[in-house]
C-alpha cells in the first residue's frame, strides 16, 4: 500500500494507482478531458495538472503514479491558472462556439469544465478556420471543427475495439483526426460500433439519429442486456416521450465495458419494418383485422387438442416466454415438435457432451480478454458476436497469436497469424489431426505450427461458433475437449441468439421437419423469419404467428397476433457464458399490442391448458456447457 497526501488528506492506495485515481477515491475533484477510465492514461489535455511537492513543474495527475510520501495539491492558484490557460487554448483552437453546437448546455465535457472553472469568457478568440464536416457515414457525423484532439476516439478504436480506423495525420497545430489514410469515414474500415461517438467529450463525433433529439437532462435511461446476440452486453437505452433516442454501452458493465457493435447500438434505431398493431385472421382467403377475442378463438379452433402441432419460438425472446412456451406446448399440449427457430444448431452437440461428462467444460468470456493464443473454429467474430471479436482483435498488437480455422471466407482470418483449412463436416478429422500434432508434433506443417503456438501459450483459448456446433458430431466434440485438456486451454462457445443457451437448457433443440404436421404455432417476437422457414411453413394447413412486424411469414399465416418488440418487453436472458441478465422495458407498447408472454397466457386460457411459470428450475435442471451464474 502507498500513502500519500492530497490537499491535506492522507490517502492510502494500492501500488500502481495514479494520483488522479487516488484523488477520486478520496472524493476530490480533478478536472479531466482526455482521460477516460476505460482507456490507458494519455496525458494529452493537461487539464488534470496538479502541484507535487519537489517536482520541477506541474504534473499530470492522470499519468502520474502515486508514490509513498507524495504531497499533492490540486487547487493552488498555479493549478487553477493552468487549468484556465489550457481551457482558453482549447477554446481558441477551433470553432468551439457553443451556440452552434448540438451538445452544448450540459452534454459537452469541454463546456462543463469551463463552467466548473468559472470561465465567463475566452481570453483568446477562436481560430476562424473552417474544416469540412464528414457526413459520409450512415450513422455518424465527424465534425473536426468541434474536435479537441484528445484522441479518446482514436484510443477507443484501437485499445478497446482493436479496429484502428481512427488516427491522426500531420503533427503539431496541423494535427487532424482522420479515418484510415484520410478517407471519408463512410468509406473507411469503420465497423460502425459507435464507441467513438460514445466516448467523444465534445460534439466532434455525433450520431445522426440522436443529434438534437434530447439532452442528457431530458432523456430517460433504461439499463439492461442487449438482445441482439448471445454475448449479452449491457446497454443503456435512452428514450424521450416514448421514443428511442440513442443506445449506449454501459462503461461499468463487467463484460462489455461500454462496448457495443452496430447491431446493438445503431441498427435497432434504423428498424423500418412495418409494425403489426392489430390481430389478423384469415377469412375467405384474405387476412383481415380482427379483435383479440376473435383471433384467440380462431387459434383455439385451429389448434384443437394439439394433434400434429409444431410449435417454434424465437431465441430472442426472454427465458420467461420460452419457459411458458415449453410448458404450454410440450408439457400440456404434448405437441409433436416444440423447438426454436435456431433448432439447437448452435448448442445441441455441445449440450449433449456436457450431459455425458456430467459437468460444464466451457469457460467464461473473460478468458478471451486475456489470452496469448486463440484458435477460432469455423467462426467469424468480425461478422457475428462482434464484441467478443473486439476482445480478440484488440490483443493482436500485444503479441497474441490468432489461428483461424475455417473453410469459407472469414474476415477475422485477415488479422490471423495464420489460417488452417477446416472443411464443413470434417470437424472430427480436423480436430483429430490437431490433437495428434499437439501430442506428438507430427503431421501437416500447418497443424504442427498451430500446435506449437498453442502449446507455447500460457493462456490459450479455443473459440467456436454455431457452424462448428451444427456440424460437429459427438466424436468431434470429444476430441475438442481432449485438446483443451492437453493444452490446458479454455473453451468458449459463442452459441447463437440472445437466449440460445436458455433454449438449450430448456431442451428446445429439435430440428424442424415439415412432413405431416397439421398446424404450426410460430412465436417470432421481433425476429425476422428466414426464407427457409417461410418455405417450410407453406406445407402447413394452419399457421399461427406471433410477431411484432409484418413479413412474408405473417402474410402467409392464418392467424397473426401483434406482440411487443425488444424495447417494449422485459425479461431474463442467459448469455453464451452462463450469465443470467435482465432486459428492461424501455418503451410503452402501442395500444392493443401484448407481450408474447401475455399472449401465450391468453391462448393457454382459451385452450384450457395448465401453465407453469417457474423457469429457473427448468434452466438449472440440465447440466450446462458452461456454469450458470446469477448476477
Amino acid at each position, binding site marked *: 500500500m502507498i500513502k500519500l497526501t492530497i490537499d491535506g488528506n492522507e490517502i492510502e492506495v494500492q501500488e500502481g494507482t495514479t494520483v488522479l485515481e487516488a484523488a477520486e477515491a478520496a472524493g476530490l475533484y480533478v478536472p479531466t478531458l482526455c482521460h477516460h477510465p476505460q482507456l490507458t492514461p494519455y496525458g494529452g489535455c493537461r487539464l488534470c495538472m496538479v502541484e507535487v511537492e519537489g517536482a520541477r513543474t506541474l504534473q499530470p495527475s492522470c499519468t502520474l503514479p502515486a508514490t509513498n510520501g507524495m504531497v499533492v495539491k490540486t487547487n493552488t492558484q498555479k493549478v487553477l491558472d493552468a487549468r484556465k490557460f489550457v481551457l482558453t487554448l482549447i477554446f481558441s483552437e477551433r*470553432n468551439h462556439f457553443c451556440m452552434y453546437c448540438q451538445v452544448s448546455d450540459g452534454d459537452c465535457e469541454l463546456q462543463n469544465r469551463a463552467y466548473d472553472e468559472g470561465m465567463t469568457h*475566452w481570453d483568446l*478568440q*477562436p481560430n476562424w478556420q473552417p474544416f469540412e464536416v464528414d457526413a459520409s457515414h450512415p450513422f455518424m457525423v465527424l465534425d473536426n471543427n468541434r474536435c479537441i484532439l484528445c484522441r479518446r476516439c482514436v484510443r477507443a478504436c484501437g485499445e478497446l475495439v482493436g479496429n484502428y480506423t481512427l488516427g491522426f495525420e500531420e503533427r503539431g497545430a496541423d494535427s487532424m483526426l482522420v479515418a484510415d489514410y484520410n478517407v471519408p469515414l463512410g468509406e473507411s474500415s469503420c465497423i460502425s460500433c459507435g464507441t467513438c461517438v460514445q466516448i467523444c467529450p465534445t460534439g466532434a463525433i455525433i450520431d445522426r439519429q440522436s443529434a438534437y433529439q434530447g439532452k442528457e437532462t431530458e432523456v430517460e435511461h433504461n439499463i439492461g442486456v442487449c438482445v441482439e446476440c448471445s454475448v449479452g452486453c449491457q446497454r443503456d437505452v435512452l428514450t424521450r416521450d416514448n421514443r428511442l433516442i440513442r443506445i449506449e454501452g454501459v462503461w461499468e458493465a463487467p463484460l462489455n465495458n461500454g462496448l457495443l457493435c452496430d447491431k446493438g447500438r445503431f441498427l435497432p434505431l434504423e428498424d423500418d419494418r412495418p409494425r403489426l398493431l392489430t390481430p389478423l385472421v384469415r377469412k375467405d382467403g384474405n387476412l383481415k383485422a380482427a379483435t383479440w377475442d376473435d383471433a384467440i378463438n380462431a387459434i383455439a379452433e385451429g389448434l384443437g387438442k394439439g394433434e400434429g402441432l409444431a410449435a417454434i419460438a424465437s431465441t430472442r425472446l426472454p427465458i420467461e416466454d420460452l419457459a411458458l412456451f415449453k410448458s404450454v406446448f410440450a408439457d400440456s399440449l404434448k405437441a409433436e415438435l416444440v423447438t426454436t427457430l435456431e433448432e439447437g444448431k448452435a448448442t445441441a452437440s455441445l449440450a449433449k457432451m456436457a450431459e455425458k461428462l456430467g459437468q460444464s467444460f466451457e469457460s467464461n468470456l473473460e478468458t478471451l480478454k486475456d489470452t496469448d493464443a486463440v484458435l477460432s473454429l469455423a467462426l467469424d467474430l468480425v461478422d457475428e458476436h462482434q464484441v467478443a471479436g473486439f476482445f480478440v482483435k484488440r490483443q493482436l498488437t500485444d503479441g497474441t497469436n490468432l489461428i483461424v480455422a475455417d473453410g469459407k471466407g472469414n474476415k477475422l482470418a485477415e488479422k490471423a497469424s495464420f489460417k488452417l483449412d477446416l472443411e464443413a463436416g470434417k470437424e472430427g478429422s480436423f480436430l483429430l489431426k490437431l490433437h495428434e500434432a499437439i501430442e506428438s508434433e507430427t503431421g501437416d506443417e500447418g497443424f504442427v505450427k498451430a500446435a506449437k503456438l498453442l502449446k507455447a501459450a500460457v493462456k490459450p483459448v479455443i473459440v467456436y461458433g454455431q457452424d462448428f456446433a451444427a456440424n460437429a458430431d459427438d466424436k468431434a466434440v470429444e476430441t475438442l475437449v481432449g485438446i483443451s485438456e492437453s493444452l490446458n486451454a479454455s473453451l468458449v462457445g459463442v452459441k447463437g441468439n440472445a437466449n440460445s443457451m436458455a433454449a438449450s437448457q430448456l431442451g428446445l433443440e429439435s430440428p424442424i421437419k415439415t412432413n405431416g404436421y397439421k398446424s404450426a404455432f410460430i412465436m417470432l417476437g421481433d425476429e425476422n423469419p428466414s426464407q427457409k422457414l417461410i418455405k417450410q411453413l407453406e406445407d402447413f394447413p394452419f399457421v399461427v404467428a406471433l410477431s411484432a412486424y409484418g413479413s412474408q411469414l405473417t402474410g402467409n399465416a392464418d392467424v397473426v397476433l401483434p406482440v411487443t418488440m425488444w424495447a417494449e418487453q422485459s425479461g431474463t436472458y442467459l448469455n453464451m457464458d452462463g450469465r443470467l441478465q435482465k432486459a428492461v422495458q424501455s418503451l410503452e407498447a402501442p395500444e392493443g399490442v401484448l407481450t408474447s408472454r401475455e399472449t401465450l397466457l391468453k391462448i393457454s386460457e382459451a385452450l384450457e391448458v395448465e401453465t407453469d411459470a417457474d423457469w429457473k428450475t427448468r434452466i438449472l435442471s440440465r447440466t450446462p456447457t458452461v456454469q450458470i451464474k446469477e448476477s
Partner: protein
Amino acid sequence: MSLLDIDERILQLVELVDLRATPITDLKEPDEEGVTVGILEGGINNTYNEEVAKKMRERCKILVALGDCAVFGGVPAMRNFFGAEAALQRAYVDAESNDDEGKIPSSPELAQMTRVRALNEVVPIDLYIPGCPPDADVIFYALTELAQGRIPEIKNENLHWH
C-alpha cells in the same frame, strides 16, 4: 430586449440608477466627463462598432459585455467562416427575396464591415455576462449588484452560455 425579461423588477432597478444614455433615449452617448457603468451588447462587426466600443471604454469606469455576441462574437461571428464579402453577397444579391438588381450598398458614409470579434478583442472588459440571451435573473442580479457598487460574481448557476 432581454432586459425587459426582468419584468416589474425593472422598477426597482430604476430606483437605484441614474440612467445617463441609451440608444433609445435622446442622449445616445455617455457624458464626456464619464459614467460609472457602461453596458455593451453585441460584438464588433464593423468600424462603427469599434468606435462605439472605444468611446464607451474611455467614458465608463466599468464596462460590461452583456450576451454571447458581446462576450464571444455570437451568431454574427459565423460569417467569419465565409468572410464579410460572401455575407454581403448572400444578403443583398443572392437572397431569394431580392430582385435581379441586387446590389451591395457601398456608400462611403457606411461603416466598413470587419471580421466579427468579441468585445474583449478590441477593448478591455471588466465584467462578462454570457448567455444567449443571459437569464433574466442573472441580468437582474448583475445590474442590482452594479447599481449598489458591487462587482457581481457570475458563477455556478449564474454562469451559462450556449
